[in-house]
């Protein structure tokens, strides 16, 4: 998996890194447990300051996408993408709610579609 940082983009470099790693975890390109390169090496390869890459890793860790294990480096969270997990929990809660209310499945889906369109 490659990460690309555009020098002409308005998006800060750390955000570009964060989004690409998050998307790679979500798509399965980065498997749970996969080890990310050390901050210093990734910063050197990308020509960025160490703090920039460190910030990307911190934000990924705050989102639960990766875990820092001290001297063992940073790895993709073994529990998968936290964003995906949170979305799955919200979907499960919604399904439990609409079924308790007696709402038909087709109507429940239509309500979601309407909410997504807003």
């Amino acid at each position, binding site marked *: *998996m*490659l*990460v*690309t*940082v*555009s*020098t*002409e983009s308005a998006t800060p470099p750390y955000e570009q890194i964060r989004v690409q*790693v998050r998307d*790679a975890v979500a798509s399965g390109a*980065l498997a749970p447990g*996969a080890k*990310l*390169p050390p901050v210093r*090496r*990734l910063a*050197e*390869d*990308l*020509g*960025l300051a160490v703090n920039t890459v460190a910030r990307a890793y911190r934000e990924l860790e705050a989102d639960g996408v990766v875990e820092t294990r001290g001297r063992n480096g940073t790895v993709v969270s073994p529990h998968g993408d936290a964003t995906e997990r949170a979305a799955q929990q919200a979907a499960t809660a919604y399904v439990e709610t609409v079924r308790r209310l007696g709402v038909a499945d087709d109507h429940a889906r239509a309500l979601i579609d309407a909410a997504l369109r807003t």
Partner: protein
Amino acid sequence: MTAGTHIIDRGGTSTTVVEIPSEVFFTGMLVALAAGGVAVLTFLALTFVRTWRPATRERLVNRHALRANLVVPEELRPALEHQLAMRVRGGVLGGLVGLTSVLMLVRPWEFPPPSLGLATGPLSFGLAFLGTQVGAIVGGMLARRSMPSRAVVARVTPISLADLVAPAERRMAAVAACVAVALPALLLVVLSLPLADAPESLALSAAPLAFLGLAAGALYLTLPAIADRLARRRALLGDAAALAWSDALTAQSLRDLHWAIAYVGGVAGLSALMVIGTAVPDDSAVASTIWINVSAYASFVLLLVTVALVLVRSPERHVQRTLWPEFAIHPQ
């Protein structure tokens, strides 16, 4: 010793045999060796100096590009030229160190010179080649450059030896490493048997061949770690094309190490196989001769077949085929 000894054969014919004094013969050998050494040094010096010439640098890049089947974007060319030139310079200097160590090993100025028997050739080649390779790798490390680009690319997941070196070359080195370890060990066992009767000059080869074999085997086992280290230390920083070329240069170094293992290990192993045939008792001289001849011819044929089978698969394009198909000069 005097010159001009007359010999009269059974037919009554008189023949003059010129006897060359030993001192003259070996002095002549040393002079020839020195002349050869000067020629080699001159060639190396010229190669070193030419790396500063623009035309030479351009040819270097073009040759590598065609071999690896990778395009060279114009913005990458200066950094790539510098990288390749530094590798050549490092290789020349490393080769000089290797040749010096070979001279220290064989010491041709001594009489009689120390003998390592059949191990002399592969050991000398191994030392010289290792010096060249280490020098090229160090030269490349000193030449790391960033190329100007709108986007910078880095690899997050590591690549392995299998991504960089073609399966045919990896198998070739694996077989050679096994042969290199097994056959010299078998030779040592055979020579230790009570009935073994190898000529002393060949029996002396056993220990050096075993050492060479073990060295080839050990180098083979460390190849994955070497690949990891070289791949992580990128030669060229920049966009995807720079990463592709970094991979190609890493792959070239690894491929050279595979071929070195194949040559040194293969020659050590097959030489041991031939010497085994000389260890038979005197009354089996015919069997010994047959063994030596068959093993020599079989080794030569095996070498040719191996080289053909490996090269026909264009292993030098493995990185482009597996990692960077989008950068092919000639799409496959």
